């Protein structure tokens, strides 16, 4: 298939439809409004349904309903809208409902700004909603990877019966890039025999619920969920590594920021610096082994984020104090320049090469 030029947000819609998602419930918010716009135009053409809900809270509960009936379903928003969806996301996790939730992050806190940011890392990976649950969180760095992860996200959601969050930022959503669509569905997806789609007369009905009236039962359910998350940690870590072995310093960043960091590394290499990179693609499960492999001669790990420092907590947990950690962040919708990262690395390693 030849490549076409698409905006990240449009590509989210096209990827979802290609992966068999025929239902979308959402509410517009900059910088992701092209997702609902695209879905409202394209879903009727494939016999699907698009509903602009009266609010984000309504949208996520419509997702709950559609997912409960066994359909592939998606919603999307940007930071403040995702914050509103947290109650429903926790319900989906509790009721074990597969769905894909796209967050094109913008500057915060509060209404913040429409410019790109990465301040929802905690919200996405720690659970912005109540209770002991985790989402699978995938962070694309370009529009092609966004397409691939949306498609894979639907498979992972079905495989584990769990909500999957695609954590992009306004830049990924608004940027145009060449993409192609190559969806190969997994062949090991289980039948959705739990869905409420009608089982025929005389058979025990299925129930979708996250309410438990017996504490013992809820604890048992929690253990079941935790066993599932353990399996996800075992099987679904994704990471890109670059020249980590023998590096004097390792930069770690995800999404848009990782691309800026890569440009910085190319500049530093020209000046003789040995800088490696770890780019987590799955933020939950976090690819901690990649950090455990960093050699003792490495002088530091620099985390770069469009936030005031969130992923760095997972970096510190992974390193367990073995190697000094440093941080460079921009926030409020500001995007770092490669030069800033170059300067920070020189400051850590010293100027002489």
């Amino acid at each position, binding site marked *: 298939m030849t*490549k*076409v*030029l*698409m*905006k990240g947000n449009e590509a989210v819609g*096209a990827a979802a439809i290609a992966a068999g998602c025929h239902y979308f419930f959402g509410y517009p918010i*900059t*910088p992701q409004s092209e997702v609902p716009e695209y879905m409202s135009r394209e879903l009727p053409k494939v016999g699907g349904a698009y509903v602009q809900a009266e609010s984000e809270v309504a949208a996520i509960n419509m997702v709950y309903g559609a997912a409960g009936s066994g359909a592939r379903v998606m919603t999307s928003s940007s930071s403040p809208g995702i914050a509103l969806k947290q109650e429903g996301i926790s319900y989906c996790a509790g009721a074990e409902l597969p769905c894909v939730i796209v967050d094109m992050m913008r*500057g915060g806190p509060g209404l913040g*700004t*429409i*410019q790109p940011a990465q301040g929802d890392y905690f919200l996405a990976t720690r659970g912005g909603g109540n209770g002991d649950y985790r989402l699978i969180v995938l962070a694309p760095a*370009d529009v092609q990877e966004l397409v691939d992860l949306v498609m894979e996200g639907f498979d992972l959601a079905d495989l584990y019966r769990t909500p999957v969050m695609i954590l992009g930022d*306004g*830049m990924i959503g*608004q*940027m*145009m*890039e*060449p993409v192609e669509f190559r969806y190969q569905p997994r062949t090991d997806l289980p039948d959705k025999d739990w869905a409420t789609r009608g089982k025929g007369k005389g058979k025990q009905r299925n129930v979708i619920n996250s309410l438990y009236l017996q504490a013992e039962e809820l604890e048992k359910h929690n253990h079941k969920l935790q066993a599932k998350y353990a399996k996800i940690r075992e099987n679904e870590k994704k990471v890109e590594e670059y020249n980590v072995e023998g590096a004097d310093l390792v930069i770690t960043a995800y999404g848009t920021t990782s*691309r*800026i960091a*890569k*440009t910085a590394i190319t500049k530093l290499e020209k000046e003789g610096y040995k800088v490696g990179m770890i780019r987590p693609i799955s933020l939950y499960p976090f690819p901690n082994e990649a950090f455990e492999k960093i050699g003792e001669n490495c002088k530091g790990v620099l985390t770069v984020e469009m936030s005031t420092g969130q992923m760095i907590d997972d970096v510190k947990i992974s390193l367990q104090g073995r190697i000094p950690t440093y941080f460079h962040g921009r926030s409020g*919708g500001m995007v770092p320049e*490669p030069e800033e990262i170059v300067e920070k690395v020189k400051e850590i390693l010293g100027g002489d090469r």
Partner: protein
Amino acid sequence: MDKDKRIRIIIGHYGSGKTEFSVNYAVKLSQMGKKVALADLDVVNLYFRSREKAEILEDMGIKVIGGAIKGSGMDLPAISGEVLTPLQDKSYQAILDVGGNPQGARTLGRYHSYFKDGEYDMFFVLNANRPETQTVDQVEEYIVKIQDVARAKVTGIINNTHLLKSTSAEDVMRGYNLAKEVSTRTGLPIKYNVCLETLVDELPEELGDNVFPIKLYMREEWML
């Protein structure tokens, strides 16, 4: 370029590359010694708008007109009243960088009285690599819809078929062939074939002097 009408309206499908073309066009006109004003009428896009490059363009002597209310995070369809300056003051060469699709072209309605036949050009920017503008029928539909909303007539086609920094000569030629078919169907001339400066030597002679080499002002160095 100096044969184009004093008022140039740049329209097209969402994401066709209107802004990159408009910015390059403004720079070239300015380098020819003209007094240039670039009006950013985009109320559809909130990222990658020509007003983001106001500083470097103003350093080149180009007047940049953006939103009525300043702020990079401004999510309001508020266009500056100053747009009237280059429309009324005939010493200006005016470029109107319009938002994508018929929705984006709606802003033009307010300036209808300045768009007199023979006194303006309205260029349709075509990117054959966008999914919605790959056939003659699709392109013609967009031209008709945007004309209706803009209440002005398209006077030429800009072939701006690209894949950003990975654009090849084949991309430009595929777009050229589509633009030729659109031209035959509609009678509109192909005004320019846009390409990266580095591609100029790879293009066949048949494109003649319509080749319009550009720099990518809107893409940061880390972008594709």
